[in-house]
């Protein structure tokens, strides 16, 4: 199994490990709920080094990325990031990614489980374009610092970082350590994600986690695992590949039309993207399913695959669910027929729970 540069850090902090797409990653250190509340109320540090990082260079780098992602990227400013999807010709989702635009190159951050599949897809897709795809996943590391106190904490060693707007980044040099710091995240909280050289990881984490006081319980940044990351992103209504997104689901049905630029081939120097024709058709005809948020009665957790019913008729199935640590009641996301209207029940395997349709996200941080 692959290990990130922070493996020893996880061991030292009492991590319980899990195999996540071939990576030995911490699922929790103390308790999933405690780590969840730490992120919502103060701050947490997640190792996200397992996510794939591809540096894209070459004369046709911009055209290549326009070709493989659904969203227009040519108008991105330097030092900004953008969420986008990678689709196949049928419009099915191969991955959801973040595109970073640097002065002289691009960086794509992709899901760990899709890294090798995307590399293959990209090699095929580049055709005769002059592009180099450099997989930097193991030569770099990545951490997410998330929570309401994170920006203040970071302000102590960088004045610039707290001034970053959402979805922009800066390149920060601390002595010989070069970090890419973006105001992005996957928890619904404010915070940053930091990309750095793998060889510098253990030095950098000491710098990032350094506290005024020595009491670990009062720390601004405590390590948080994949368990909390999943309950946090579920509350924030964010899709997880393999749950809300996969090759059978197109971004329009997933409610991600805002990340699909169906007209980008019309631009000057525009490029048609893979899946564009299929997505145009789906957008014109209307998607057959929709992603909804559900609030369940009782305390039981709806698991992926559980049937969603209106009356006695199955209209869809659950993709993600948890007992929301912040809200105190069970929440779930589900795909249902596009025409489905009204409240539902979820078949929990023998028992049923009434589930009210609620807007996504379930949780929004106070501005």
């Amino acid at each position, binding site marked *: 199994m692959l290990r990130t540069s922070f493996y020893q850090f996880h061991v030292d902090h009492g991590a319980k490990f899990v195999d996540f797409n071939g990576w030995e990653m911490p*699922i929790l250190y103390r308790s999933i709920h405690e780590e969840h509340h730490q992120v919502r109320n103060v701050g947490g540090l997640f190792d996200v080094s397992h996510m794939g990082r591809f540096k894209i260079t070459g004369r046709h780098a911009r055209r290549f990325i326009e070709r493989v992602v659904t969203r227009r990227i040519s108008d991105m400013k330097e030092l900004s990031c953008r969420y986008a999807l990678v689709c196949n010709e049928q419009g099915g989702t191969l991955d959801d990614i973040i595109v970073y635009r640097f002065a002289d190159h691009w960086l794509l951050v992709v899901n760990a489980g899709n890294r090798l599949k995307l590399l293959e897809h990209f090699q095929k897709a580049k055709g005769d374009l002059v592009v180099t795809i450099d997989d930097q996943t193991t030569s770099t590391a990545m951490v997410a610092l998330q929570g309401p106190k994170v920006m203040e904490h970071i302000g102590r060693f960088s004045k610039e970082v707290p001034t970053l707007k959402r979805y922009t980044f800066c390149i920060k040099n601390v002595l010989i350590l070069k970090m890419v710091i973006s105001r992005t995240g996957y928890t619904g909280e404010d915070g940053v994600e930091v990309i750095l050289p793998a060889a510098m990881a253990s030095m950098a984490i000491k710098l990032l986690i350094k506290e005024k006081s020595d009491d670990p319980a009062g720390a601004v940044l405590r390590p948080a695992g994949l*368990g909390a990351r999943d309950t946090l992103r579920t509350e924030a209504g964010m899709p997880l590949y393999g749950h809300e997104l996969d090759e059978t689901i197109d971004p329009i049905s997933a409610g991600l039309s805002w990340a699909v630029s169906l007209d980008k081939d019309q631009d000057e120097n525009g490029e048609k993207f893979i899946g564009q024709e299929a997505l145009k058709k789906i957008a014109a005809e209307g998607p057959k399913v929709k992603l909804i948020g559900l609030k369940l009665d009782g305390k039981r957790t709806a698991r992926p695959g559980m049937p969603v019913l209106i009356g006695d008729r199955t209209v869809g199935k659950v993709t993600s669910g948890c007992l929301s640590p912040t809200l105190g009641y069970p929440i779930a996301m589900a795909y249902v027929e596009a025409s489905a209207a009204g409240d539902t029940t979820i078949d929990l395997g023998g028992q049923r729970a009434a589930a009210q349709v609620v807007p996504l996200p379930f949780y929004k941080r106070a501005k």
Partner: protein
Amino acid sequence: MPASPADRRYLETHEWHKPEAGLVAIGISRFAVDELTDITFLDVKKKSGAIKAGESFGEIESVKATSELYCGIDGTIEAVNQAALDNPAIINEDPYEKGWLIKIKPTNPAQVEKLLTADAYGK
């Protein structure tokens, strides 16, 4: 696997059985609790009456999974831990004492001795 207390017996499905004052308390082991992660819901379907060895008396849910709970002996259910039903997190905090689930009056008190010892369970 973390060491399991030797003052009780176990099932391969991770339920401990501890004789105390004529009754047998049943709960789940620290190993099971750690595997489940944060427990979010406890459902004891059978709150009273006769129960047989091998019978399920409820379900436990965590952030990660839902599992059945099994009884290892024949007897009558005498008590259910209301505190654990109200706040299942106490099972995470203290699975061997405060986090007990049900208490049974055994039909045959010697039946507990047939279950796994802490050593055998730990292997």
